[in-house]
């Protein structure tokens, strides 16, 4: 699918590592905040 600027970012929920522990993160929980979502090919690569 192709995304366009101005459209609502597709929501998702997934497991994450944060603050030394594991947590479920849901994008829509970040409503009312600015978010930068960064994809990268894989751990142990430079980004």
């Amino acid at each position: 699918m192709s995304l366009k600027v101005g459209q609502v970012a597709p929501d998702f929920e997934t497991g994450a590592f944060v603050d030394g522990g594991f947590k479920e993160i849901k994008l829509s929980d970040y409503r009312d905040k600015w978010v930068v979502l960064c994809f990268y090919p894989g751990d142990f690569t430079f980004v």
Partner: protein
Amino acid sequence: MASVAARYKELQDLGVEVLSCSVDSKFTHKIWQEVELSKMVDGGVPFPMLSDTGGKIGSLYGVYDVEGGVNVRGRFIIDPDGKIQAMEVLSPPVGRNFSELVRQVQAFQHVRKTGEPTPAGWQPGKKTLKPGPELAGKVWETWKIGD
């Protein structure tokens, strides 16, 4: 991710939350943090590192490379209404420019606050333009490249 983590405070100061995402498991993220990232950045990566096994999220955002089985370098700026304001996608060998990310966030925040569009290369404190019939054909009088 280390380069973003190292300057994370600049984004925090702008009220921005960062989420990073790769096809690695959360367990791999933990090990990467412990054995490498924490040595590159004081305290390691401070934001959530999302696990996207199978590339489901990457597929939603059009950045999942099925052949390689990885997400390419896609970066999305999402506003408080949940709308995508900017996206940048790079193929794997080239890294991102953090300063440009910060500049874009500042520009989008300025537009959201003031409604004033920002011209090419705008930085905080620089001139903005007020579109309208009187500006048509007269941008050259009020704004020069590099202003």
